[in-house]
């Protein structure tokens, strides 16, 4: 699956779709494929503050548990509450129905977010 060019990416495999001051967050197809069989997700609640570079939740597969790291700083405005009971949508539609939260962004975006080309390169180097 190719990485959409309209998104920003983190080196830890999250993506952000920015529309005005709202960012939608999720994990990339590469991350979803590496995690494989997902068993659990823990997401913040609407109104929670999250910080760029810090964990906003946890995602767990049969083999590993990982922090979900936020690409942005802001306040959670919406949570994809259906995910918990349908984790496979993260595997099947990582950039669509597998979105996790929406955030009202405050302040500037971190300078180290990657564009699709830079993330493609990182994901390719990470693949085995």
């Amino acid at each position, binding site marked *: 699956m190719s990485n959409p060019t309209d998104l920003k990416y983190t080196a830890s495999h999250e993506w952000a779709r920015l529309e005005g001051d709202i960012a939608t967050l999720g994990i990339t197809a590469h991350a979803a494929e590496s995690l*494989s069989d997902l*068993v659990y997700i823990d997401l913040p609640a609407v109104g929670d503050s999250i910080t760029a570079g810090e964990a906003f939740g946890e995602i767990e597969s*049969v083999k590993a548990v990982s922090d979900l790291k936020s690409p942005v700083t802001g306040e959670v405005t919406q949570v994809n509450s259906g995910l918990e009971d349908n984790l496979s949508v993260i595997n099947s539609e990582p950039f669509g129905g597998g979105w996790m939260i929406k955030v009202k962004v405050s302040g500037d975006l971190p300078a180290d977010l990657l564009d699709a080309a830079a993330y493609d390169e990182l994901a390719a180097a990470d693949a085995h």
Partner: protein
Amino acid sequence: MASATELRRTPLTALHEDAGARLVDFAGFAMPVQYEGILEEVGRVRTVGGLFDLCHMGRVRILGERREEAAQFLVHPNISKLKFGAIRYSFFCREDGTTMDDVLVYRDTDEVFFCINAGNRDRDIAWMREVVARYDCELQDLSDDLAMIALQGRASVDALAPLCTGEPPEPVRREGATGPAALKYYSFMRGSVCGHEAMISRTGYTGEDGYELYFAADKAPEIWNALLETGKSAGLTPIGLAARDTLRLEAGMALYGHELDDTTNPVEAGLLPKMVKHTHDFSGRAALEAAIAAGPQRRLVGFTTAGKRVPRQGYTLHLPGDDGGAAIGTVCSGSPSPTLDTIIGTGYVRSELAEAGRTLAMDIRGKRQDVTLVEMPFFKRDY
């Protein structure tokens, strides 16, 4: 992680790549961790069967007149009392009883054969060489010369039989069957697969019936493909090491580095509840006998949880309601169990708490999850 190009390859690695398996570093080898999905592959083995590449494991034999004396120093069973063709599960223990590895030992008429873990190959073989030299015996490391694959699940007999020649030696033969179907569990025979000399062992690490096959490394692709072909109509497929880990855990089998390691002994793990009467000395004997007599301070337990999260090695176990209190145990392994439709795990807890039915609390990255201790194995096959 080292890139795949630096990792050692097995005679089957190219086939795994062609099949689209995901390869990971396992003890320095590029091994298929999964082909489709872990839980799907577990289900396949439980309902039909699967094929596993185990070429990364160590294969060693001891030759020489005093080979059984040497082998008897390495492991606890009385080798010379075993039937020819018998296999035993055992341990390489240090003098203090701690475990260097868990192994399978095969008694044959002219050799004693060992299957050892990939991650411990080098140190096991160094230690075995040292011991064997004291008995003027020869140790041959066949790990690179012999391939090893496992064929597991109820479809195993029908997949193997058409490709296989050989009859089990009389002491390990089942009545009313022929060929590999006549081989008793935990025994082996010499024969052929696809016309190539092979050692056929009715063993496995999944809790299913099945075989582990040893043959010349260069025959591995031919035999692998032939078994997939004969097993195809039943639905048999290649299975990755991640599914194998869940399968062995469901079956209550120990994994070195988890239930057993450099700090634990087989008595604590419940794998050596009483000592057989010994005519010989072996490494760790005195310490293990003392551990049996005194009773271990901690014991390996199995548990289930009603949550969704997976127990991970190193998570701590606590008394319920004891938030922030000291740990009374530690998790060794965990997995969702697709067969039992629950979450399962193993861990060491203080002996006085190690009773089925007890509720403990597991710390998952700062959050508590109740776990219920249960009898192991979690799963037993019904055929």
